[in-house]
């Protein structure tokens, strides 16, 4: 075996340029896969994490009917006392009750439909940092009867701070909802669509507006540790046996986003399969050349008494050396890069950054540091080595010593 390894190593130096090219292609494939894979994983993980932390929580509590039919009558009835007791659960970090309803907004002869969101100003601010989005005026006080509107909405409706907006909508159990809302603040929104169609008021004012005794559309619950999700859900379910609550975990809440991420990841993976296939064929070509130009040597060694198995193992070692060095180099160079961007994430600028900022999300892209990334390259390169060794196996098993020696 020592002889085989020694010969494999020296054979690599016979054609330095070719060895170098083969080695670099392995290196670049593994390097690109690791760095971009880390970026991709990191970006999606960060997006999911911040969506959970800033928007939806680890799970939401709602009326079972609400999931498919988001009408006022399907809102959840829950007392403040109950909410406070959940909030004091040591496994729960914070929670956020919200009311989401639709209304027709009215000012003079202008009307516009709008989504009215009733928030607990303190709790909402812990989640989405709503206060940061205010560009004019003041944030809502706890039981504020005022409203926060978007810039585009204020322009199209001709409204300013201090003006009063009239809303008409659908109340609880068939009542008609109507109310007057003084404009407290005008906020930034990254896209005009959201800006023109969403307004915030305090949850108590929203309840009064729709005539809901005590409750919310849903309650978002953020845990201190995601691991406890099932435990906490079961706990809450036990404590509220009398009430028919639905507990919706975050995967369900952003099902579409998750499906989108999964398909993005597939596209991304496909790109890297192709990269490896290209590199694999490159290596295959190298191995074909290596085998063919050494046909005579193989015949000589075989006539001297070396088994074909050993000849193939020798070639496999050459491949392995190329692949292992390429892989190790790529890990050595990629690891510090990934680690650096893991702890010093890329800071975004421009439109996207502002949009994230508005939603209380720090505009960064941290890289993921996952052992899986390295492991995948090892698997890919192993498969590639197995694929490339097929040719010499076929060639050597058909090798005719006497014909080759005659040449």
């Amino acid at each position, binding site marked *: 075996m*020592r002889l085989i390894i020694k010969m494999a190593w020296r054979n690599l130096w016979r054609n330095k340029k070719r060895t170098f090219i083969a080695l670099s292609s392995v290196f670049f494939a593994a390097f690109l896969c690791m760095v971009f894979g880390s970026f991709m994983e990191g970006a999606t993980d960060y997006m999911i994490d911040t969506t959970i932390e800033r928007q939806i929580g680890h799970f939401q509590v709602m009326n079972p009917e609400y999931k498919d039919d988001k009408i006022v009558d399907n809102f959840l009835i829950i007392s403040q006392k109950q909410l406070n007791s959940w909030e004091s659960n040591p496994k729960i970090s914070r929670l956020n009750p919200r009311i989401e309803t639709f209304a027709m907004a009215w000012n003079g002869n202008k009307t516009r439909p709008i989504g009215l969101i009733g928030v607990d100003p303190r709790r909402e601010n812990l989640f989405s940092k709503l206060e940061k989005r205010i560009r004019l005026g003041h944030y809502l006080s706890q039981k504020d009867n005022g409203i926060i509107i978007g810039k585009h909405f204020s322009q199209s409706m001709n409204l300013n701070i201090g003006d009063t907006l009239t809303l008409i909508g659908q109340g609880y159990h068939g009542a008609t909802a109507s109310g007057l809302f003084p404009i407290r603040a005008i906020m930034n929104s990254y896209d005009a669509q959201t800006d023109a169609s969403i307004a915030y008021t305090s949850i108590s004012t929203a309840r009064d507006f729709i005539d809901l005794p005590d409750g919310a559309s849903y309650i978002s619950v953020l845990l201190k540790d995601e691991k406890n999700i099932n435990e906490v859900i079961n706990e809450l379910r036990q404590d509220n046996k009398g009430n028919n609550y639905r507990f919706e975990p975050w995967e369900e809440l952003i099902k579409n986003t998750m499906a989108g991420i999964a398909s993005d990841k597939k596209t991304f993976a496909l790109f890297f399969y192709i990269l490896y296939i290209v590199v694999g064929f490159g290596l295959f070509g190298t191995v074909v050349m290596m085998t063919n130009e050494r046909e005579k*040597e193989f015949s000589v060694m075989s*006539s001297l*008494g070396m088994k074909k198995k050993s000849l193939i193992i020798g070639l496999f070692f050459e491949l392995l050396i190329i692949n292992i060095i390429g892989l190790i180099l790529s890990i050595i160079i990629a690891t510090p890069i990934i680690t650096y961007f893991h702890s010093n994430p890329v800071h975004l600028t421009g439109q996207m950054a502002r949009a994230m900022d508005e939603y209380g999300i720090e505009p960064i892209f941290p890289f993921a540091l996952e052992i899986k990334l390295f492991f995948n390259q090892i698997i890919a390169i192993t498969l590639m080595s197995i694929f490339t060794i097929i040719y010499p196996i076929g060639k050597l098993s058909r090798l005719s010593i006497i014909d080759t*020696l005659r040449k």
Partner: protein
Amino acid sequence: MGNSVIKINNLSKIYKEGVNEVHALENIDLTINQGEFTAIVGPSGSGKTTLLNMIGGLDTPSSGNIIVNQTNLSSLSYNELINFRRDNVGFVFQAYNLIPVLTALENVSFIMDLQNIPSKISRKRAIELLESVGLGDRINSRPSKLSGGQQQRVAVARALASKPKFILADEPTANLDSKSAENLLDIMEQLNRKENITFIFSTHDQRVMNKARRIIKLEDGRVV
């Protein structure tokens, strides 16, 4: 003839090339004894290479038998034949065919390494062999740094390394100038005389034939 190394009975080899049949060897009967220094001669295409390949277990007969030390080569499997070659036959090729990535010393140790002989022993023997072919000062040279004559002497040392029953050399001097050829032949002859090693070689070269103690003449695949 208790000391016969190789016994060939009624050996024939037919190569098929499409519809044509080439009778490379026909009904050969031959006995080679321990310690012979024998030349196989004959015109081009007479079957010299074919006969040597058969004896060395590189090619298989169409009919007839080759018996080396009681072993009928036809009875050996592919892998058994590889081991047979490793342990019994020393090959010297016309084109030297040293392994380019190995030094002279490593080329000579090659077969001993295949036999799993401890490297301390194989190294010592390889150095002795290289010294005996006059290359004691070139043991660490790669083949590309050696002349043709030197390479062929390394090849002879390599052929001797496993202490084979006999050495087969197919036109060992064909690529050498006359001085190197003579030198090589002298070395082979010396080894044959001193250590009683059996040599069978093919040649076109009259001077090489003159050194042989027995000449087997082939013509159209027959011994004449």
